[in-house]
């Protein structure tokens, strides 16, 4: 129970950046013509911010369903890396636990929980931390989506609130850079993401993550 509360607490600062994103999603989804309940349901059925934003754009463009499905799938492929990263820590858990934690394995919950898994503290209940972080993020995403749908056009577009996406990921990534290898990993990932920006389906993100991981591993080899 203590780990569960720690997980919620660890996730709270991140929610400051996530809330505006959920609201923007709600606004964009309804203005793209999605019914209120469809827009809200997507936040729990898909539950992955970047693919939800991409989907709204494709709905606006009138893209065919198969293209939307493929795009959403490819954008979320990076979660396989998170899955591999968390797997050794939760291998002892029941299948039900694994299903629940997989559903909750977003960028933001993963990033907060993996730091806790890797720290020095001895606890056999760190999966409760991941659960707490995941549920905190899930609740925030649903509520902020609802707020965006409800407020609709009253959210001013020129406030640049979508910039909180970059800020949230900066807040998650930068403190995790703690040696030369992780610094070089981040640097090479960032450069690759820019250099390969022409790739479709945001595949540059996958390319960049793989280059970053390889560089980190290489500079850490001794």
């Amino acid at each position, binding site marked *: 129970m203590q780990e569960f509360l720690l997980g919620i607490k660890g996730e709270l600062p991140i929610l400051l950046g996530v809330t505006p994103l959920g609201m923007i999603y709600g606004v964009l989804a309804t203005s793209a013509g999605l019914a209120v309940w469809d827009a809200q349901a997507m936040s729990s059925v898909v539950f992955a911010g970047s693919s939800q934003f991409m989907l709204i754009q494709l709905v606006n463009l009138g893209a065919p369903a198969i293209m939307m499905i493929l795009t959403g799938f490819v954008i979320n492929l990076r*979660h396989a890396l998170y899955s591999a990263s968390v797997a050794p820590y939760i291998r002892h858990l029941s299948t039900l636990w694994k299903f629940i934690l997989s559903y909750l394995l977003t960028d933001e919950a993963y990033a907060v929980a993996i730091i806790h898994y890797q720290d020095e503290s001895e606890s056999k209940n760190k999966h409760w931390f991941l659960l707490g972080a995941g549920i905190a993020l899930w609740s925030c995403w649903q509520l902020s989506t609802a707020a965006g749908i409800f407020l609709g056009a009253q959210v001013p577009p020129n406030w640049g609130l979508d910039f909180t996406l*970059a800020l949230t990921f900066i807040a998650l990534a930068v*403190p995790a850079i703690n040696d030369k290898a*992780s610094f070089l*990993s981040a640097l090479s990932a960032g450069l690759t993401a820019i250099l390969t920006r022409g790739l479709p389906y945001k595949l540059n993100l996958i390319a960049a993550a793989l280059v*970053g991981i390889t560089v980190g591993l290489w500079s850490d080899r001794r």
Partner: protein
Amino acid sequence: MSEIWVVMLSIGILTFLTRLSFIYMHEKWQPPDVVTRALRFVPVAALTAIFVPEMALQNGELVLSLENIRLLAGIIAILVAWRTKSALWTIGVGMVSFWALTWLM
């Protein structure tokens, strides 16, 4: 069932299976040592790959100038994150810098 629901359910299931993939397989198959060591770099590499384009690209084009407010405010946020290691300060100072720079220019 309407088309949007077919799309949502398909992506939802595919995303869930992606997130479950290695977690589920781990009992039967464990990755070699080199992969385990590589996984340490997943958070840093994946997250940086997302935020750097958000700062430096505008409509898919690289914009490295003082006119790019997101780049400037992002750099300020990186410095704050590095010094304070606090998400609250990083997001707060980053957003205030963004608004201040927008107002100044």
